[in-house]
């Protein structure tokens, strides 16, 4: 497949590339969100530890 054909996707570029972009965004977004969620849970645990909310 030629490079120009790759980019134009046989004329369907305006559909194909946004579809891939959206899916890529969803995947990357998931990764970022998962790590953020874990980070927040760590901070919460640190806080609960500090405030003595957790049993021995």
């Amino acid at each position: 497949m030629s490079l120009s054909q790759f980019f134009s996707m046989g004329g369907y570029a305006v559909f194909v590339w946004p579809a891939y972009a959206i899916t890529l965004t969803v995947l990357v977004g998931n990764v970022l969100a998962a790590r953020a969620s874990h980070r927040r849970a760590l901070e919460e645990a640190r806080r609960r530890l500090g405030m003595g909310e957790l049993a021995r």
Partner: protein
Amino acid sequence: MWTWLHKFASPPHFYRLAGQLAPWFGWTAFILIVGALYGGLVLAPPDYQQGDAFRIIYVHAPSAWMSLFIYVVMAASAAIGLIWRIKLAHAVAASCAPIGASFTFAALATGALWGQPMWGTWWVWDARLTSELILLFLYLGYIALRSSIDDLQRADRASAVLAIVGVVNVPIIHYSVVWWNTLHQPATVTKMAAPSISTSMLIPLLVMILGFTLCFVALLLVRVRGEVLRRERSAGWIREVMA
């Protein structure tokens, strides 16, 4: 085997194990997805009917598959958590929801983008897209219920009931939507079905689906670690984690 399972379900062990496993799943998924992208976008020949537009299948079908698969995983782990009172299972269910909802959204968006060149409109009430939309509502309802309940234990158990009710209804909903759709579309073939698919077209699709699944496992492991921390009542192993 039960001792191993029991050990696995114990929060500190799971926390450590998940932390070690997640990068492996993550990077393997990355390689598979990149490989599938190359196979689907470059190697596979254009479809004789849909041209290059059919390549959307490589992002639409895996997203749709994930949206359904994750819902079932969510409902199953919720049921396990409810019946056997295992906090880890509830943590898994809670973690599934945002991931599953995002894949459902991706399936809908890519489905619409696929529909426009094929049918001429940005949205069609075809059976599969409409079912996906209702699935999105089920996910959002689950997430909304969770966030409305302050007590984590009540939230776990109430949303578990909801997830089970939802999963039982998914086949009913899907069947009724398919039935409804055939009433009003006499002759049209569902173009969302894969075109008569050759091996060079099929392999990237399967690899992509595998890649997405492994990615889901990695995401789940990361999120569940956090959820397990949230549900922890005693200080002991958390202190070690902080150190």
